[in-house]
């Protein structure tokens, strides 16, 4: 297994190094192969991680929870790597002199970004986890700025400033956790995760409490929790589409992973009530804000960004329910959201490319003009709205069921109402873009057809993943999830 883990850490980095020099076709091929290979490698970890924790070299620790997040990240890495070949094709054909520089930066950044996100869940050390998350920030900020437009420069600046300030708070959380750990484990404690969990209830309460709240606000900034989500719609809408998909499906999840680790520590030290209440407040506030904003969005990528805030809110609420079925739902939701949101962004990217506009009002007749991407985008939106038979239906169902079973009736009810509100916002906009016949001078003259098959194949794979997660998750995955739920300390 160590070989698999080391390959996961080396391959994306090597692909980044190749992309720095290679011409764009080679870089694209290398990136795609690496992305798909990483997903295969993570799948190879599943059977082992479903039975035991893997720890290596004292700094690496992969348990069932990590593997869930590795799966989400590596799946999207593979999908967007393939998608990028089609995404960059028009610029290559235009023979723009700046293109080879752009594509070198793009592929190098994409691989490094995936590398840092794959590294974060493997760290057995809260300091290294923080560093990995900070590295994801600086690399993704550069990727947000890569389009070199006014909007991209603005979004990148807001993103790096807000996210860095948030991570400053997360660093304080790390330091206070060290303080708490050192009180029990001695001055030579090195912030590794396992001894902290074993120390559990012996940890002093005040620093752990402080650290948990700081971690939720700090990492929550990157996860997109209200009120520190403000960078998120800007960055998601201005970044190149493959990067938006990774930001939404993987980066937010990696930040949520960091919060989950602090949740484990806090629950072990303080009992589950306090961390759950904190997450409940942030989760409901995020869901409420996102549901309201979704009702009136003009930009398709911003709309999907607010949908991400919505789903992160659902994740936080799901953890706050604490019932085993709700936690299983949360982890399944991470996987299903990655597939669905990746699909939605990739589909939106095709629409934006076809109609030359990010504005919802500038896109119409998608279903007629795009024989594949139109229906696939529609499916992605329905999947995001938790329609059966897709994965998010199952995961949200489990979360709500867990909420009712833990006898908190008001919160699941609020969740259902707000998710329904979000459903209206998303479907009305999707209806406008897909079903309303093509109108306007630009749209009416467009020929029917797909820009590139490379931009369809990964979306089909995403639909397949959503169906598998929704209809019948494989036994290995269920085993992995139940072990992860056990590790998260599910107590009703």
């Amino acid at each position, binding site marked *: 297994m160590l070989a698999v883990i080391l390959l996961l850490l080396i391959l994306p980095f090597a692909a980044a190094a190749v992309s720095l020099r290679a011409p764009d076709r080679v870089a694209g091929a290398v990136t795609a192969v690496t992305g798909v290979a990483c997903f295969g490698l993570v799948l190879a970890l599943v059977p082992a991680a479903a039975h035991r924790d893997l720890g290596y070299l004292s700094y690496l620790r992969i348990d069932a929870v990590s593997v869930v997040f590795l799966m989400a990240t590596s799946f999207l890495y593979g999908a967007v790597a393939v998608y990028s070949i089609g995404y960059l094709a028009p610029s290559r054909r235009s023979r723009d002199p700046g293109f080879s520089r752009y594509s070198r930066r793009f592929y190098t950044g994409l691989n490094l970004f995936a590398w840092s996100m794959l590294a974060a869940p493997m760290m057995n050390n809260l*300091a290294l986890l923080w560093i990995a998350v900070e590295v994801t920030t600086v690399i993704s900020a550069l990727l947000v700025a890569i389009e070199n437009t006014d909007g991209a420069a603005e979004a990148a600046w807001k993103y790096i400033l807000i996210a860095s300030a948030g991570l400053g708070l997360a*660093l304080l959380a790390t330091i206070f956790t060290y303080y708490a750990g050192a009180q029990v484990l001695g001055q030579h404690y090195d*912030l590794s995760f396992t001894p902290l969990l074993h120390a559990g209830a012996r940890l002093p309460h005040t620093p752990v409490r402080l650290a948990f709240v700081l971690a939720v606000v700090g990492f929550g900034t990157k996860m997109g929790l209200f009120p520190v989500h403000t960078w998120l719609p800007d960055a998601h809408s201005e970044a190149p589409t493959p990067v938006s998909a990774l930001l939404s499906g993987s980066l937010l999840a990696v930040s949520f992973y960091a919060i989950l680790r602090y949740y484990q520590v806090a629950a072990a030290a303080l009992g589950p009530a306090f961390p759950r209440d904190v997450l409940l407040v942030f989760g409901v506030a995020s869901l409420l804000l996102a549901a309201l904003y979704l009702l009136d969005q003009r930009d398709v990528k911003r709309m999907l960004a607010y949908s991400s805030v919505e789903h992160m809110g659902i994740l936080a609420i799901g953890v706050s329910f604490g019932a085993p079925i709700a936690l299983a739902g949360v982890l399944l939701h991470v996987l299903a959201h990655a597939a669905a949101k990746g699909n939605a962004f990739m589909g939106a990217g095709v629409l934006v490319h076809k109609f030359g506009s990010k504005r919802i009002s500038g896109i119409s007749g998608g279903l007629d003009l795009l024989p594949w991407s139109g229906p696939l985008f529609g499916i992605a939106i329905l999947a995001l709205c938790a329609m059966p038979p897709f994965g998010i239906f199952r995961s949200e169902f489990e979360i709500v069921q867990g909420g009712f079973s833990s006898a908190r009736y008001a919160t699941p009810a609020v969740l259902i109402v707000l998710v329904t509100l979000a459903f209206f916002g998303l479907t009305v906009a999707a209806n406008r873009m897909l079903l309303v016949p093509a109108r306007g001078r630009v749209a009416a003259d467009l020929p029917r057809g797909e820009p590139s098959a490379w931009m369809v194949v990964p979306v089909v794979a995403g639909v397949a993943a959503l169906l598998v997660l929704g209809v019948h998750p494989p036994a290995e995955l269920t085993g992995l999830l139940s072990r992860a739920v056990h590790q998260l300390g599910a107590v009703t």
Partner: protein
Amino acid sequence: MSATAAVAAPSVYSGGSSVIALGVLLAEFGMFRQALLRDQVRLYAVQSGLISVLAVLVAAVRHLPDLYVLAALSAALKVVVVPIVLRRLLRGIGRAGEDEPAAGWTEIAGSGSLSLANTVLLAIAVAAFGFFSVRALNIQSSVLPITALEISVSVVLVAFVLMIMRRDVASQAIGFLSLENGISLAALVVAAGLPLILEVAFLFDLLVAVVVFELLIRVHHGRAESLSTADLTSLRG
């Protein structure tokens, strides 16, 4: 100061370290009144230097040899390298802006919503809040007097005010860097025993962040032809 401390005079060590910590906070406040970016960078270097001095003091008195290395590396990075990067950036921008010569070199765009005096009042209120709220947490440290932790939280909060109130990208970046200084100060109090390798990793990470900040400031300046954030208002809703 608690009742016992008021009776017994503080030792030279705890008094000295509290004075240095206070210096860090004063440097943070000093950044508010600077009108020149160049001076703000200088003040950041002074602030970072004070933290390195404090680290050396702790290393000597508490026999933590790792902290000598940390102090040296931290001084090399935050007193020398980062200010050089920032000043090179400002100089480059000063030359590039032709219709407003030396724009980035001299002016700081203050707050649009509050006057300087009110901003400082706000910062004082926030600093006092941080100072007294940490006392309520009842955290003990065997390394430094807890006053230093209280001050460090004040520094972090004042740095937030600085980042929020300033209307140019360079000052916002310096606000973030001084925020990191506040955290370094807190780390000296409650996490002095943190393994050196992790501290070095943090510093390396800071270096990467500074380089990316610099790049994005250049991108911003290249597009807006100024450091002001006044134009950064197109993305809404």
